[in-house]
């Protein structure tokens, strides 16, 4: 870290010079590692010799599967270095131990107990590195009766209570799109690591963190868990509506939405400009809920005459929480997002022209790296030979032994 202390503050990123070992696959750990890398960390991604399984998930350009062009992998692994290690071999484990002495942060997502049983648990790695921050990200955490139960996005969505709340009340519970249980766990892991690393540099004392994807997801079930525990009330899923002023309506060119709290009503009534909305049966918050069905019927009609862009403009003019169901085409070409430099935009040598989220926030204190993801094992030579001092012929032997 010391070599960076003399740099101008304006060029320093929060994790410049901090080394992270990413022993994590798929989405959660790599997502956390991606932002650490973007904020300057030297993230060494330890991949099994066949590569992170996310290399084998698409999308791919023109739907041609290729380990080096998976959109998911490229998105999650920018600015990292890739080293392949087979931890089932003693050479692989030894190289990992050597690397860990220079690491400030370790992210791992193996099945609970795996690393400890290979002499690579927090206790082992922190023995000579007491400021080490290490996080384990697993579906159900390190302890408890389900700790070793395999999981998928769908089963975690169900296990956290989120699924019960999602979908139409007359149909089966629904899952939201993509891989949200994994992504949200990755975001939580990023927050956990950042907080723990701050503690580590303030106190020169590391910590070990057990993150359960079920728990971080259950921890955002809005107030519905507490409503059950404080009042004993069950919540039914409501589809796209909480009430007439909180939901999704069809508009002439897609779907639009309104989410208004009582204090947003005056602006809403001005924006919609239907005279009945000024009547007390709608303007009074209590009576409005009693007359909800009538209000909703009226709004179905009103929304059907609106456009998505028109809603945005009305919302901005009257300060009303209107929005629309945006597509990735809308977003990738959004003037607003472009003006805020939200996207990484790269012409990738293998994958072509790419536009994808390139940062989390805007700061006047640092920028974000938006570089490419590594090829499988691209940095074996730099790290194992250049840094750890193994001879080139050692690398050949390690490859033949399937250690790298």
């Amino acid at each position, binding site marked *: 870290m010391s070599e960076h202390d003399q740099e101008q503050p304006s060029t320093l990123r929060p994790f410049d010079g901090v080394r992270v070992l990413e022993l994590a696959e798929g989405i959660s750990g790599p997502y956390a590692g991606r932002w650490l890398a973007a904020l300057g960390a030297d993230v060494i991604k330890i991949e099994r010799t066949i590569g992170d399984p996310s290399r084998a998930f698409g999308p791919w350009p023109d739907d041609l599967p290729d380990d080096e062009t998976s959109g998911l992998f490229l998105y999650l692994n920018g600015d990292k270095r890739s080293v392949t290690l087979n931890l089932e071999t003693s050479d692989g484990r030894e190289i990992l131990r050597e690397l860990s002495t220079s690491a400030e942060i370790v992210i791992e997502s193996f099945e609970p107990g795996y690393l400890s049983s290979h002499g690579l648990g927090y206790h082992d790695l922190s023995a000579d590195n007491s400021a080490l921050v290490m996080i384990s990200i697993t579906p159900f955490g390190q302890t408890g009766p389900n700790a070793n139960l395999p999981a998928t996005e769908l089963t975690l969505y169900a296990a956290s209570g989120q699924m019960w709340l999602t979908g139409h009340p007359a149909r089966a519970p629904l899952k*939201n799109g993509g891989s949200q249980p994994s992504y949200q766990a990755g975001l939580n892991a990023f927050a956990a690591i950042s907080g723990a690393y701050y503690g580590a540099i303030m106190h020169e004392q590391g910590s070990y963190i057990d993150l359960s994807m079920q728990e971080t997801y259950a921890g955002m079930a809005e107030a519905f868990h507490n409503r059950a525990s404080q009042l004993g009330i069950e919540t039914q899923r409501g589809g796209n509506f909480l009430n007439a002023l909180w939901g999704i309506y069809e508009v002439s060119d897609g779907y639009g939405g309104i989410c208004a709290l009582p204090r947003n009503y005056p602006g809403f009534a001005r924006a919609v400009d239907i005279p009945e909305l000024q009547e007390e049966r709608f303007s009074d918050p209590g009576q409005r809920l009693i007359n909800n069905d009538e209000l909703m019927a009226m709004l179905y009609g009103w929304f059907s005459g609106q456009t998505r862009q028109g809603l945005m403009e009305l919302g901005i003019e009257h300060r009303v929480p209107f929005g629309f169901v945006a597509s990735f085409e809308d977003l990738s070409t959004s003037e607003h997002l472009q003006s805020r430099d939200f996207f990484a935009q790269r012409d990738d040598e293998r994958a072509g022209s790419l536009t994808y989220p390139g940062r989390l926030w805007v700061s006047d204190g640092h920028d974000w790296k938006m570089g490419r993801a590594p090829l499988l094992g691209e940095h074996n030579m730099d790290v194992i030979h250049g840094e750890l001092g193994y001879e080139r012929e050692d690398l050949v032997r390690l490859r033949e032994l399937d250690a790298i």
Partner: protein
Amino acid sequence: MFDPGRPLSGVRVADLTMIWAGPYAAKILADQGAEVIKIESPRAWDNIRTLIPPPVALGEHWWNTNFYLHEYSRNKKSLSLDLASDDGKAVLARLLPHCDVVIENYRTDVMDNLGLTYEWLREQKEDIIVVGMAGFGKTGPEKDAVGYGPIIEMMSGMTSTSGYGDDGVPYKSGISYGDPIAGICAAAAVATALIQRKRTGQGQYIDLAQREVMSTLLGEFYMDWSMNRRLPDHIGTGHDWMAPHNVYRCAGDDEWIAICVRTDAEWEGLKRAMGAPDWAERPEYSDQILRWEHRAELDEQVTAWTSSKSKTDVFAALHAERIPSSPVWKMLEVIREPHLRARGFYEPLQHPEVGIWSVHGWLWRADGAGPCILAPAPDFGQHNAEILGGLMGMSADEQWALEAAGIIATQPEGVPLASEMPPTPSML
């Protein structure tokens, strides 16, 4: 002695946030040991206090009691302060030198309208870290758009990915998903800024747009648009290549279990759990590709097995075979779920006007950490004297003058006691 659960101890946060996204961020900071001072005006308090009127909100001082408030504001302190008045702003100016962080999730123009610009904040504390969490950010043509969680979800691309697939309708998440996501990210932003301050001695201004954070959880969809100009199909609870992969109806009213089979080995396990039925030996179910092609009839067969049993019995059989599965836990069930209970995820929270109920504790668990919940959400203005007098050294006379002028208070203005209120329906 370093407490690994509370790495942010020693950090003080002026918390100007309201409703959900901001308070969720500040909750994470408070759980991690920061001293979070929740600042609300007697005339513009956190709306979450009064979103749920009596009798659902319990107790005479009902603005202090609802479950929603306590979810987001446990472990915090409360200072009431009218920031729209010059006298209130002067008090804030005296508080800020004691603070490390200011966090707010107002509409994008509110801080400037109040005169609380970044420049002004820095004049009070040069290395202050300021996090603004406006829905659409502080710059750009849509900066004045406003939105709560579901709007953020719609505007991020998230909602476009969700749906049953047979009706073309996009569905929102059951919660206001955009809020906690922005909150977690803002907590991370604060920690990274503290790390940077430790290294450079400088604070920073962070413009965190809730919509953009949500979009980062959808990277593969942006890539598919970039690479193939393709938008996602709605696949309900199905999967691109796994089968069985669905929610299956169980005995009872609206009872479901999620089951996923990823490999041939898991398929063998599922067959054993189902009692090795003859139909499962048909050649059309003999490998993953065939099972996926025949997923509709496969789902019917699995439903025939699950629909006569309780979801917990089905889960026990699948758990024994290590098949990815979970009951679709309802809210009254998830708070008693044996695994979460065994891990101590829920902790008791006590408030004098409500009694004891349980809320979730650590979102993640540092080895050696004690209990997460040290205090319930503060009563409105509960820590006025502690902060104004104790921390800032303000005399009792000065505090009394502020109270007389309505700059501070212990009851939101115009909010009656529960016994003086007519019955009012709740939004939730």
